[in-house]
């Protein structure tokens, strides 16, 4: 990552490179297997090991949360992470390099879907087992996954289309309220909507529909921003979209039937890890296909030069409208999931603070990149959990980090990188 190399760091770098060299040939299949084994290992021996190392209990989030509170535990945490995560994953990756590559090649003989599903199942199993250790970890995992979806959906507008849109909290609110209104009115004995219409286990079929409905409401709402965007760009669009966020917020504050400023609570507990995982995977897959399609390239063309794009037969109006509605749809789905994880929403959640958070994740991770959104959302969430004990200093460190990233990597950590599923799951030798 370092840009310049001086005489002092060169040998270290070379040594690192030779150390890392065999790992470049490890297929994703082997990495995931390693991660799964590490998760199982933690399940089996995590507690006694943590106890032996004096940590008391299994460190959640790789010990990031406790090291700031009790710096004395740092060596213990490092040993734990080495023994449970790094060594097993590294060892298995090395040992199964050949086998993994062979299997990956074998899998690719079938339609790509088969191989993709195998990888996703491995990933899911890893996350599920890892998240089982502790409910706090599970919650952070779910909220992080939802952040990935929300960040990626904002990246469509701010990264791929190059507009500075501040309307995402509004879309989230529409989706959250849309989905909650359906589930709460149909399934919960609530003092706003009256007794439940359905009883029994209809949730698995209604919940997806309510999320999609939330997404559609957000998509329709996004037209309020999309249509003015035909004529305004840059700062002006930013102001219009910011106004949209405020309009939605005060609109909901005045809607008595969803609780007004008091908020809407007691959503059914349906957003568990598998549900969130499936939705986020579907979202990432659809958005990735969208941005790599002709439409996605049209977005890039509009970003680079709108007049030239128009001259080259790109229908810029349609492109903008589709992009806004598409992005808003997924933001709405993310908002719906968010509401069902927290099981409470109120209008003031979707204000400036939320906006700053999603924008930070997008620009931290990287514009115009699916990788970037994943890195941004995961990084930001982990960082924000890890630095929580610092209280007010957290809000000095995170902005300073953002400023540093803006100086050294103005487009974000992993910007302008294509997310090619085939390349990820293919054998590496």
């Amino acid at each position, binding site marked *: 990552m370092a840009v310049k190399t001086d005489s002092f760091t060169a040998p270290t770098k070379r040594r690192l490179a030779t150390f890392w060299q065999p790992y470049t040939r490890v297929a994703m299949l082997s990495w995931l297997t390693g991660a799964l084994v590490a998760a199982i290992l933690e399940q089996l021996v995590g507690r006694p090991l943590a106890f032996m190392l004096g940590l008391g209990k299994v460190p959640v989030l790789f010990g990031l949360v406790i090291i700031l509170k009790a710096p004395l535990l740092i060596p213990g945490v490092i040993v734990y992470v080495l023994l449970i995560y790094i060594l097993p994953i590294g060892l298995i990756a090395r040992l199964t390099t050949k086998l993994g590559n062979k299997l990956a090649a074998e899998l690719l003989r079938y339609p790509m879907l088969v191989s993709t599903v195998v990888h996703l199942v491995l990933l899911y199993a890893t996350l599920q087992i890892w998240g089982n250790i502790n409910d*706090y970890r599970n919650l952070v995992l779910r909220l992080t996954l939802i952040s990935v979806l929300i960040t990626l959906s904002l990246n469509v507008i701010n990264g791929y289309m190059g507009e500075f849109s501040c309307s995402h909290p509004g879309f989230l609110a529409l989706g959250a309220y849309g989905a909650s209104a359906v589930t709460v009115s149909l399934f919960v004995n609530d003092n706003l909507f009256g007794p439940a219409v359905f009883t029994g286990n209809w949730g698995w079929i209604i919940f997806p529909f309510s999320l999609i409905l939330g997404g559609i409401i957000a998509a329709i709402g996004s037209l309020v921003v999309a249509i003015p965007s035909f004529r305004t760009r840059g700062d002006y669009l930013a102001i219009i979209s910011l106004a949209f966020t405020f309009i939605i917020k005060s609109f909901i504050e005045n809607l008595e039937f969803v609780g007004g400023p008091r908020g809407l609570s007691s959503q059914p507990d349906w957003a568990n890890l598998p549900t969130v995982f499936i939705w986020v995977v579907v979202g990432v897959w659809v958005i990735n296909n969208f941005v790599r399609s002709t439409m996605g390239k049209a977005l890039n063309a509009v970003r680079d030069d709108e007049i030239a794009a128009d001259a080259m037969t790109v229908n810029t109006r349609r492109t903008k409208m589709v992009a806004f509605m598409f992005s808003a749809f997924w933001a709405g789905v993310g908002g719906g999931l968010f509401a069902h994880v927290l099981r409470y929403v109120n209008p003031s959640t979707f204000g400036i603070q939320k906006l700053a958070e999603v924008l930070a994740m997008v620009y931290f991770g990287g514009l115009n990149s699916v990788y970037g959104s994943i890195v941004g959302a995961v990084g930001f969430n982990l960082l924000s959990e890890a630095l929580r004990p610092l209280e007010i200093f957290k809000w000095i460190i995170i902005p300073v980090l953002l400023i540093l990233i803006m100086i050294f990597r103005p487009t974000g950590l992993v910007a302008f990188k294509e997310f090619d599923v085939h390349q990820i799951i293919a054998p590496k030798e």
Partner: protein
Amino acid sequence: MRKSHLLLLIALLLIATVAITACGSSGPQTIKIGINAPLTGDIPKVGEGTKFAAEMWLDDINKAGGLEVGGKKYQVELVIEDNESKADSATKANTKLITQDEVLAIVGPQSSKQAVPAGEVANNYKTPMVSPWSTNPNTTLNRPWVFRAAFLDPFQGVVDAKFISDEFGFTKAAVLYDVASDYPKGLADVFKKSWEDLHGAGSVVAFESFTTKDTDFSAQLTKIINSGAEVLFTPQYYNEVALIVQQAHELGWTGPIIGSDSWGSAETVKLCGSDCYGSFFSTHYAAAGATGATKEFIDRYNAKYGYVPDDVGALTWDSLNLLKQAIQDCGSITGDLGKDRQCVRDALANIKNFPGITGDMTFDEQGDPTKCAVIVKISDAGEFEFYKSACP
């Protein structure tokens, strides 16, 4: 070469860990209490008040050599988590406190925006939680594990209506409130209802609203003055209170103006000046004219942190002492967290007439306290003076 380096590193770390754990081996059993407070975000002053009150409380416990439960002294540890004044962060913090830090009970979060979702978490994990400041009914509704130390909005509306009728004998009232804000709106509705219960339908002669951040109220106030109202009730925050009271006097309003606990900020008098002198409001406690334990708390807080604590600090103090009382009532700490939490919850629910610094408290079946409100008069010196205690 490479491998030996790695092994060496691991060996060194292992030795270091063992050495450290050997030194810091745990002594006597401790009781952990979680504090979920908005230390950063929109309302950092609230978080600060919470933290200061909690630290003062812990000091007392430590000075006494620990918390005595059933003849045995336990060390108390506070785990303070920042919820950034965000709903999702508050749920994360609560989940962490319960599952990771394994606290016995939680005090906080303060504002309803965080307390409602966090209460859900506490209730699901069967962990007692006391929210000192939240006034949204949903925080404790149908949640046997969640309690609060503040009285609810409806209660204040009833008390204010009763106080005005008893004190002045008026029959016609006017209300001016912010329609876009949760707290004033709820309170205004309740006040209207209880006033009309006392004096018949139509006795609230003017029920005027505005939206947050409005600064000109002359249209609404003119209507109110022309309606023949004898008293104006306005449950607003300090910045609006100053504007409303000043503009009302400019337009020729002469009757009393009554408010709610949102007036209870030092800023009210600073912004409003002599216009507010002689007004009344209902609140949790009054700093000036306080006596006994309340005065002692205020003086100590003031001496330590340099300012008079507001209601958040006082309510946090009461919440912590409620917990202390509950833990002591429990009789013994078994070390089995599930059992202890159940015991503390039951003890909390059974507390009768707890002498708090914000009034005597008894929890009803929803976990809301029945307690008396304090009516405060803003004196001619601009101080909040205890006027009388108003019970429902």
